[in-house]
């Protein structure tokens, strides 16, 4: 890791995860689907661990989910996050049961395990967009 203060940035041209980052750039949440057994997986793997077939495609998945858990960082373990503390990282379980790590942004009131969230997309550097999550206000 470089010693500068830039945030760690994913390689959007990565052969496995590239399609995910490309979709995020277009504000679409996707996961890898096994062509043989249709099971979904995230992050990408070069083979389906359910059926051991290698053919896969990326398909849009639900940007709605609930907070599986969350952590509030009061300390920056990487200089790129120094100006962000306290920041929230959650694991979000989307409608299909996939788990996505990501920041909870916006109003945090009502943040808890099980809270409803929906995805938003934020460009963190040129050409690099992260899915993040916003609490969905409960109706009544």
């Amino acid at each position: 890791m470089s010693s500068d203060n830039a945030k760690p940035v994913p390689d959007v041209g990565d052969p496995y995860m590239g399609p995910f980052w490309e979709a995020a750039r277009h504000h679409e949440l996707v996961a890898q689907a096994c062509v043989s057994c249709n099971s979904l997986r995230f992050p990408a793997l070069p083979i389906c661990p359910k059926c051991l077939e290698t053919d896969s495609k990326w398909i849009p998945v639900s940007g709605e989910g609930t907070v599986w858990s969350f952590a509030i960082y009061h300390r920056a373990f990487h200089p790129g996050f120094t100006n962000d503390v306290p920041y929230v990282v959650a694991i979000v379980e989307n409608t299909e049961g996939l788990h996505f790590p990501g920041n909870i942004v916006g109003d945090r009131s009502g943040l808890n395990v099980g809270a409803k969230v929906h995805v938003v997309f934020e460009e963190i550097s040129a050409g690099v967009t992260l899915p993040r999550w916003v609490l969905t206000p409960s109706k009544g």
Partner: protein
Amino acid sequence: MTRVSGEVAIVGIGWTPQGELPGQSPELTSVNAIKAALKDAGIDRKTVDGLVACKSVQGTNSDVDIGPLLGINPRYSQSLDYGSCSFSLHLAVQAIVSEMADTLVLCFGSDSRSGKLSFATGYGHSPAVTLAHASGLMHVAGMAALGLQRHKSKYGTTDEQFGHIAVGQREWAQMNPLALFRDPLTMDDYLSRPYMVEPIRREDVTMISDGGVAVVVTRADRVGEFRNEPVYLVGMAEQSALTGDYEPGYLDRLFLQAMAEQIWSTTGLGPTDIDLLYIQDPTAFWVLQVLEYFGFAPVGDGGPWLAEGHTRPGGDLPINTNGGQLSESYMWGWLHLVEAVQQLRGNAGQRQVVAPEIAMYCSTQGWQKGGATILSTHKL
């Protein structure tokens, strides 16, 4: 009782100073710990016909790099990527019962503190920046915070209940001259400390250390050749969860339940048989999970159970009486094994528990593997 019960005994323990050992390689530190363990066992290294090296966190300290310094060519020699102490100990037991070795020395050496190893990297299998890492999910404290937050939300566990782990281990550490953290830590102190990754505080997380540990094990019918009272292995179990962080919910570490079931069913023992409990604790949350999954407290009730004081000095289930990795030193659990032996020998000084007979040690490699071992002063 399992077939391996009483077949193997720990007959020597050794360790180096902990903290910062600048300029000392893990291999040199290992050999220094081995010297101490051989002295404790009362044997010459020529007696050793097996070596199991536990690689350092950075992947150094393999048997072939220790060998030239140690100056022996035992018939059996292996390295484990993550020996922790249960995995190395279990491999040694397998070597002994399969007659590939009679007397083995197990070692661990680390220069991770002076080598400035960082816990701050992302977690995952790829050195590439992942979505998790780019989102700032890093350091084992973050993973523990996710796990604990979920526990708090599901079961109502409070900071004060959880704080009994760090506070209790500090009370034990204050009686351990080897422990790096011996300043008093009251519950009020604990609760007033800031969160590092909420709901985890600095006091709930280990601090990386340099140091080495070694253990001598032998065939049970050879124990008379050694200086100390033997400590027998009476049960062991391992369980993997190799799908790791690709498995949704991996931080719940449910595989520990399968490991618990194995060791209780193969030994015929249960939680009430255990006099002393050792749990490898890079974070205090790992302790809470083991307590519940092994049945020491009902799942979800670990918080209230801890608040009853069972685990602290004077309690009925002392845990990590060395101070654990939170207060003693981060030796990947090796010093927990050493402490279990010290206590069972009755040599634990000021922190000695009254006449313990059975100790259990549980260690985990994050969310991917675990091992459990039961030790006793006698064959069961």
